[in-house]
């Protein structure tokens, strides 16, 4: 145990969080591609010298990275063990998702930090690069059956040896991307962020001394562990199960179960995903690090005050079955990892809500709906409009769910309609809330959205959709109802049609004047619908977000008396 005084600890906690935040800020400012600069699809932190455990992580990066980065560091620690001791000024680089989690767009840089000649901790930077070769620009290839079809795969290699950058590695990377300027700009930004981290750590350690800072890091992990155990102790002991399904893997139209058993005993929790589907052919597999990190994201949403370090997970045993799609081995395709981890979060919420209904929100819309329209303009120039679309959040004990929010694993905003219309030959006929999409309950879920997009270009357009929740609706908790499922339609001379794979589609051709229509799920409800205030039901009907008959079905007719 450390004997650091509590005040110094509080000050150091803030200082170290700030180092990670400053690394985030440095990359956001200097990155070339908007996925990092605007959507903040990046993350930085400090990691344990021997275990790679997360010590401190920035607050502004993407939530899913908070848990996944320690795997990247561990992969480098393992690699270093094969090749000898790390030296000051070394930097490793890789994007292999099976070692580092998430997907191949995420380029990870890991750098040992030395204090007085000894390895003190690791610094790491991850950022989503625009393109790394593979079968589709931007690497979201729904037809990929292995990693090679998704992107160029780089295992951990030493980019910098004792401060000397190996230009050859940069040359290899730049030869394997469609956007070398963007990639090199992002790489420079990440190197800059690591440099800044080293400078700030030097300042901090010269001010407080290595022993004090090391003691603080240990104390902060212990404290996170204590906090987590205190939270778990306050919950009842027991075992709760939940299951849900992915629509399909995009190749074979078979539902894929995701199952969890959540067990609490005393101050420990087990999350066991036994019974989840085996590895599948299409890109909804995920790598083991992604699965473990996802458990962390779900836990932190349930207990938002917990700090972002590995101490939180000491009391939690995450069991991922071998051979399942949650631990798919190289070279299984993992490009659609977002859909699978959203479903993992949903089942964790459903199981946890049985233990602690007030602590857990109902399921959010549960799919990122990656929709792309692409074609050629009359002058031959190609265009690709690629975006993710929003849906409703789950209701909570406090309030109705948020209408049209972003996915729980992300904090990215949607581009404005006018920016899309200015950049691409499309017109949104509708950009609206989706009536009757919310799960009923004492508090209803947030509303999903309707986007109807018409092609203006005379050459028409090709459409591809990577979505989920087309067959299995987001669930309510504490007795709350299900939301509406995801619905996708495309216009033909015979009227509106739906795709065979329901939430996934590729190679669809639209003519000028035809449209696609995406109706996204809402969020699940919280509590029994019979407990909802009649005035709230009447208000939703008056506002046109709940049909009168749907209201009668879900809530009975009492609301009709509450109309003002």
């Amino acid at each position, binding site marked *: 145990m450390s004997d650091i005084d*509590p*005040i110094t600890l*509080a*000050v150091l906690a*803030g*200082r170290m969080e*700030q180092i990670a*935040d*400053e690394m985030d*800020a440095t990359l956001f*400012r*200097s990155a*070339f591609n908007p996925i990092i*600069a*605007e959507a903040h699809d990046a993350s930085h932190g400090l990691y344990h010298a021997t275990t790679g455990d997360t010590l401190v992580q920035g607050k502004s990066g993407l*939530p899913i990275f908070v848990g996944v980065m320690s795997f990247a560091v561990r992969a480098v620690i393992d690699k270093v063990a094969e090749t000898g001791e790390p030296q000051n000024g070394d930097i490793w680089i890789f994007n292999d998702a099976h070692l580092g989690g998430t997907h191949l767009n995420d380029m990870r840089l890991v750098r040992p930090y030395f204090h007085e000649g000894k390895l003190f901790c690791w610094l790491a930077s991850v950022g989503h690069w625009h393109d790394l070769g593979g079968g589709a620009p931007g690497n979201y290839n729904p037809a990929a059956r292995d990693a090679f079809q998704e992107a160029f795969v780089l295992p951990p290699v030493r980019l910098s040896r004792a401060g000397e950058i190996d230009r050859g590695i940069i040359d290899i990377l730049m030869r394997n991307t469609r956007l070398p*300027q963007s990639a090199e*700009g992002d790489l*420079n930004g990440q190197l800059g962020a690591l440099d800044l981290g080293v400078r700030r750590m030097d300042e901090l350690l010269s001010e407080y001394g290595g022993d004090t800072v090391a003691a603080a890091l240990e104390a902060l992990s212990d*404290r*996170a562990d*204590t*906090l987590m155990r205190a939270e778990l102790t306050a919950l009842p002991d027991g075992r709760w199960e939940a299951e849900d399904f992915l629509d399909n893997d995009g190749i074979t139209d078979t539902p894929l179960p995701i199952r969890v058993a959540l067990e609490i005993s005393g101050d420990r929790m087990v999350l066991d995903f036994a019974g989840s589907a085996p590895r599948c052919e299409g890109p909804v597999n995920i790598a083991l690090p992604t699965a473990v990190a996802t458990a962390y994201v779900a836990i*932190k949403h349930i207990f*938002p*005050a917990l700090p972002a370090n590995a101490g939180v997970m000491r009391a939690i045993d995450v069991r991922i079955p071998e051979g399942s799609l949650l631990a798919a081995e190289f070279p299984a395709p993992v490009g659609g990892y977002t859909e699978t981890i959203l479903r993992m979060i949903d089942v964790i919420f459903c199981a946890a809500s049985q233990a602690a209904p007030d602590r857990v*929100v109902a399921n*959010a819309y549960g799919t990122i709906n990656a929709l792309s329209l692409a074609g050629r303009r009359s002058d031959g120039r190609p265009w690709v409009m690629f975006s993710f*679309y*929003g849906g409703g*959040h789950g209701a*909570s004990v*406090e*309030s109705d769910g*948020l*209408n049209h*929010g*972003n996915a*729980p694993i992300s*904090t990215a905003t*949607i*581009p*404005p*309609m*006018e*920016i899309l*219309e*200015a950049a691409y030959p499309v*017109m*949104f006929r*509708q*950009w*609206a*809330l989706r009536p009757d999409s919310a799960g009923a309950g004492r508090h209803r879920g*947030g509303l999903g959205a309707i986007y109807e997009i018409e092609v*203006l270009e005379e050459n028409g357009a090709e459409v591809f959709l990577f979505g989920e929740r087309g067959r299995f609706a987001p669930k309510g908790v504490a007795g709350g109802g299900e939301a509406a499922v995801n619905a996708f339609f495309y216009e033909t001379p015979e009227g509106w049609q739906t795709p065979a794979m329901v939430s996934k589609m590729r190679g669809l051709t639209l003519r000028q004047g035809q449209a696609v229509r995406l109706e996204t799920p809402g969020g699940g409800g919280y509590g029994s619908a019979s407990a909802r205030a009649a005035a709230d039901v009447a208000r939703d009907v*008056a*506002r*046109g*977000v709940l049909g009168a008959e749907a209201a009668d079905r879900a809530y009975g007719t009492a609301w009709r008396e509450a109309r003002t």
Partner: protein
Amino acid sequence: MSGKVTIGVDVGGTFTDVFVLDEGAGTARVAKVPTTRPDQSGGFLDGIGREVADLSQVSAVIHGTTAGTNALLERKGARIGIITTQGLRDVLEMRRRDRPRTWGLRGDFDPVVPRERRIEVPERTLACGTIRVPVDVEAVRRAGRQLLEDGCAAVAVLFANAYANPENEVRAVEALRALWPNPHVSASSEILPEIREFERFSTTALNAYLQPEVSGYLKRLEDALRSGGFGSEFMIVQSNGGVMDVATACARPVRTALSGPAAGVIAAGFIAAEAGFPDIITGDMGGTSFDVSLIAGGRSMLAPETSIDFGMVVRTPMIEITTIGAGGGSIAWVDGGGLLNIGPESAGSTPGPVAYGQGNTRPTVTDANVVLGRIDPDNPIGGKLDRLDVEAAGAAIDAHVGAPLGLSTTQAAEAILRVANSRMAGAIRLVSIERGFDPKRFAFMPFGGGGALHTGAMLADVGIGRAIVPRYPGVTSAMGCVIADMRQDFVQTLNVLAGDLDAGRLTDFLHDHLDRGMAMLDAAATRFEARDTVFELDMAYVGQTHTVAVPIPVRVTDGRAEAPDAATIARAFDDTYRAAYGRLLPKGTRRVMNLRSAVIGRRPKFDLGTLAPAAGTLAAALRRHRQVHFGDAWHETAIYDRLALPVGAEIAGPAILEQPDTTVLVDPGLVARVDRFGNTIIERRNGDGA
């Protein structure tokens, strides 16, 4: 000008500050009166009345107001409706698909206009400006009548792509103005002709939401001033740090969203520049927050937009102010893991710190300062209370911090300040580093009531070389009102490849902005020392969404503007982009997104020497000694009457300089010096500024 005075009035949450400048006589006076609620005009007029008997002798009244901010935060604006494009009724409610907090997934959002008062009409303009569906004017009239019957006091017209071609909006507002009983009809293309529908619609709707309230308030003030004999100009500070005439403020109240704080930053920049410090970081410590702003080379940073609250986006240029929840009223608490935290919960000014004796029992930052003797319990600021309750403050610190951490009262109080200071220092580091500035080359300028208590900590924690405490830190915003320039900002989305930019079209927009800006300056009764224009293009490479603001050279002669040629614009972009990102994209295609223009009338500054102290001696300024706790010991500490200190006085810490609304703490090891304007410069004792 002789005999005429200029008055700046800043209405804050707790106090209304009045700054009266009599340049002829070379004097300035300040007054502080309680802010009146809900109608702030009472305190406003009371404050002026205390200092000026004859309003006909006033040459200008300039007002920094929180009326708009409060109406937004408290959702006390008018009942309004909107009329919008078919299919887009919910844009205001859908926002940009964000959420209130990263973790927890809780919270919902109600826009200021509920769905039943958002009416769609047939109309559609495409991104290229082509009108695909002409507006159905009869449907607009029907919608307008429906909203009137529903009791709406203002209406906004929000049409897709109106930035590219405002024709449908123009026809709609014409029809509405013919039937609407008041002037509160606005179109998004009038308020913000800029691409991005949510930001434009939100800004326009919030403007409509504020119009009845704010214009009513300003009208009451103006009428009261006029009936008191006031015959000159009444002006309002905007969020961009410039002033506008009252008619513009009534039509564009959304521009006052950060009026008061912006005025404070303007004054801070002026004072620091006069004192020889062009690079400063300001820190305004209030009851619930610590607001930080950065001025580099005498220029404050402008942000393009802000969120007043979740989902309430206002997009108008505004002085960039970063806020953290560490104010005097922020509550100190120990969490389940044994870590001491400050805020974000705050006791604010009501009930306020425990020492105020108004019912709060949880210790605050101010309570720690009281317990350590840094605030004089017998002379509370503002004069509302007779004496601060030191014992209650100590008991609260014992119970909530001392006992759980095993610390004595003074240790616990020091701990609270250390953690609070560390958070404040963190905010300073982040605002400077995020923009690539090294905080060490900046001076720190505290203002507001509490900032000057924490100066030493900022020097120690951030490594800043020196602090400069203005002579009247408690009325900085009111002083800023008096010196702020008149300024109008304009924006117009162009959205073309740089190579396709039509020089004639650019010149037309330049002239439109220039003519409207100059017309406002011409109409002003105020004297301007100079008129300036600033023109920028928001540009990026095709494929990027992040634009950089590229200053372009525009020659203005005899009211005629000459647009730069394409090669000049390309060079200007390259220079700006290289400075921001280090390197260019060799094969990138440049795109021009927006034209931004500012027309500025430079108002005369006054000689800060006016505020300088009269003759005096150090000995005469010494009031008494008091025990004050620093580090781990009580120190016998000299207490000075700050305003009685002569120019050139040097005081080694520990010392406290008191004035009616502020306490300046000089920590052991620091030395305070009074400069020729009466500012206090605080540095390390060995004179080492680095």
